[in-house]
């Protein structure tokens, strides 16, 4: 069922449902493009030389995410173990907390 | 009126419990006897506090009994050293009196309660008297008063365990031997000098010079008191006496009796004999230091293997006395200070521990460690008290026990005896083991019985926690203990001519220098 139109959900949920679609992405892209264009309209006071490169911040951020995702993927491939790896000495392998336990905790 | 009473505080210190004791018997009602005991012990604790406040600055109070001037008459002579010990004994006495009412309900036949209170008051009188008096023979008299009443008190444990009778009998034999040795020593001194007043003895001994009679007197007094203070290997009476006595008696004895004996040892070593001739120093350093170290280890290891909590604590006491003796035998000011502070701290800590054990005995009728499994959940206050005091016994920072060990280690380092410092730390680790055994049983093991155990009565919880909080308080605020002990150490050192008494007060430099 589509959360945007499900009237059994609260209003905020429906609003968030809209974000969960493509609209948010394209809104973001629009904002990004506008912000990137501002680089050409507005002259920044840079401290480092490389800051002056147009689209430096935008590119750096996107590259950072890419690097991070790749690094994360490599780490996951290398270091991922089952949840029972340290059992019984850690909480990772334990079943979800039951309702009354959560209330006590 | 008040000042008139306070003028006689030294006499009243011992007279109040002395009069209260026969009153208990005369009235013959146990609840009334308890009220009398509590009142008398509280009053004498107040007197002790007053005397301590008077002497903390290093001044000396002299009181002539019967108006006969010393050296002929008996003199009560109070300085910072014995005022401090008086304070320990009297304040522990007051707490024990409060604690006793419920505790003995379970352990002593109600018909004997009156006699318990009487014996307790007499024991208190004796211990206070030993401490306060300035007359060597008077020391012996009071020592006997306290010892005889102690034998009675230990024997009262027969209601719980018949072996208390044998323990009391053995203690009687050994205690009497000790007292006899002591009085033989006093006899030699009297033969030599013709006086019994301690201050006078000191002067005459100094004037007389070294001789063999003096040495024999010293040896007899040393061994006699060594037995009374449970110096290893003369401690054999202690474990049985402590473990078979009624719990409240264990509390009282552990916190006071050996401490008073240590005081007597200090008094004779420093004030009466002085260190002019070297033979005492040699005795201390060649005999007491090794014995103290052996006590620290052997008794701690024995404690680890004990299955009965009271017995374990008793052996731990022997080890702790080792620390005190070690501090004294170092013959420097930090060492003496450490010994005297540990006198106090150990009284508080061991008192608290035995009180907690007494509560366990009260509720579950046993002090065996395996019967205490799971008690941490059932008697949370007392179990927590035991743990808190146990930390003090180990010497964890912020407890009183740490302060003692800190001074003691300082003292050994001042002597350059770093190996002693290592041994002290090492034996503290043994304390970790035996305290942990109990903690493990109390908190981590499954409860041994299903029947719910009730919380201890408040009249036991309150004094126990006063002791525990005191042990924590004196671990943080060392003003009272530190000052009293260092004044006492100063006085003792002044009384002799130890050349090497160094001016290094541990930790004197302030932060931010």
């Amino acid at each position: 069922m589509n959360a945007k139109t499900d009237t059994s959900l609260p209003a905020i949920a429906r609003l968030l449902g809209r974000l969960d679609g493509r609209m948010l992405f394209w809104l973001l892209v629009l904002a990004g493009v506008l912000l990137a264009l501002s680089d050409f309209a507005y002259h920044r006071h840079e401290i480092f030389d490389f800051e002056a490169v147009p689209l430096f911040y935008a590119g750096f951020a996107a590259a950072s995410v890419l690097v991070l995702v790749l690094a994360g993927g490599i780490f996951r491939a290398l270091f991922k173990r089952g949840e029972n790896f340290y059992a019984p000495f850690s909480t990772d392998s334990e079943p979800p907390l039951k309702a009354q336990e959560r209330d006590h905790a | 009126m008040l000042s008139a009473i306070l003028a006689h505080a030294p006499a009243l210190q011992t007279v109040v419990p002395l009069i209260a004791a026969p009153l208990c018997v005369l009235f013959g009602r146990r609840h009334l006897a308890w009220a009398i005991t509590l009142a008398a012990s509280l009053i004498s604790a107040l007197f002790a506090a007053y005397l301590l406040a008077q002497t903390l600055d290093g001044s000396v109070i002299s009181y002539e009994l019967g108006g006969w001037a010393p050296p002929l008459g008996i003199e009560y002579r109070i300085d910072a050293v014995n005022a401090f010990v008086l304070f320990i004994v009297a304040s522990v006495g007051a707490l024990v009196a409060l604690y006793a009412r419920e505790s003995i309900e379970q352990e002593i036949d109600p018909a004997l309660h009156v006699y318990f209170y009487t014996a307790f008051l007499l024991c208190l009188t004796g211990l206070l008297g030993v401490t306060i008096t300035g007359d060597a023979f008077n020391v012996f008299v009071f020592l006997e008063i306290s010892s005889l009443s102690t034998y009675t008190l230990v024997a009262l444990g027969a209601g719980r365990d018949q072996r208390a009778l044998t323990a009391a009998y053995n203690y009687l034999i050994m205690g009497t031997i000790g007292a006899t040795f002591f009085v033989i020593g006093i006899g030699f001194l009297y033969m030599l000098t013709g006086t019994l007043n301690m201050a006078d003895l000191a002067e005459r001994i100094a004037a007389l010079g070294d001789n063999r009679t003096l040495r024999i007197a010293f040896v007899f007094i040393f061994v006699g008191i060594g037995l009374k203070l449970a110096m290893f290997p003369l401690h054999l009476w202690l474990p049985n006496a402590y473990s078979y006595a009624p719990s409240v008696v264990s509390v009282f004895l552990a916190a006071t009796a050996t401490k008073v004996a240590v005081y007597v040892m200090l008094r004779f070593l420093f004030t009466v004999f002085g260190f002019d001739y070297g033979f005492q120093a040699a005795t201390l350093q060649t005999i007491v230091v090794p014995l103290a170290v052996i006590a620290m280890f052997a008794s701690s290891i024995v404690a680890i293997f004990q299955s009965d909590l009271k017995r374990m604590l008793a052996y731990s006491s022997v080890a702790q006395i080792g620390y005190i003796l070690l501090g004294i035998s170092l013959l420097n000011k930090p060492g003496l200070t450490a010994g005297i502070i540990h006198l106090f701290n150990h009284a508080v800590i061991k008192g608290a521990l035995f009180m907690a054990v007494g509560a366990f005995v009260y509720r579950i009728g046993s002090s065996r460690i395996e019967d205490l499994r799971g008690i941490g959940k059932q008697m949370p206050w007392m179990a927590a008290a035991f743990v808190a005091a146990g930390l003090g016994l180990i010497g964890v920072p912020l407890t009183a026990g740490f302060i003692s060990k800190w001074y003691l280690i300082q003292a050994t380092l001042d002597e350059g005896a770093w190996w002693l410092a290592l041994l002290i730390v090492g034996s503290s680790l043994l304390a970790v083991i035996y305290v942990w055994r109990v903690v493990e049983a109390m908190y981590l093991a499954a409860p041994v019985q299903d029947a719910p155990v009730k919380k201890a009565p408040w009249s036991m919880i309150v004094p126990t926690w006063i002791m525990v909080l005191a042990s924590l308080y004196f671990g943080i605020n060392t003003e009272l203990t530190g000052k009293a002990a260092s004044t006492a150490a100063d006085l003792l050192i002044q009384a002799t001519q130890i050349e090497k008494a160094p001016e290094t007060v541990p930790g004197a430099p302030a932060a931010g220098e």
Partner: protein
Amino acid sequence: MHHHLILRVVSKMLIPPILLYALYVQFHGDFGPGGGFQAGVIFAVAFILYGIVFSLDHLRRAVPPHIVRRFVALGLLIYAGVGVANLFLGGNFLDYSTLAHDAKHGQHYGILLVELGVGITVAAVMISIFFAFASRPPTIKDTDW
């Protein structure tokens, strides 16, 4: 010892003089040898003799144990009470000089009172000890010796 007639008669004759002698030792103590300790023991001997010869029950009737125990306390109380009385009269503890108009008489009264206290306690303690030992049921019967 019912059948020991001689013993019974002799004891009956001896007991009063023993008591009298005890009192003599007690009160003559400040002039000659004697005093509370000795007098107390002698005093107690009279009772103990009575107990041995005429049976414990007779003795119990004559001096009930609970009374004896109170006397133990009483003697001590007299001793300490004299000392405290001195305090109230303005002297030090046990300063007998304050007990009378002059020091000499004061010392005299004081020592008499204190010795009396000692005497009472010692006598009572001795009788108590006798009770304690004699009341104990023998672990081995007389006939089995």
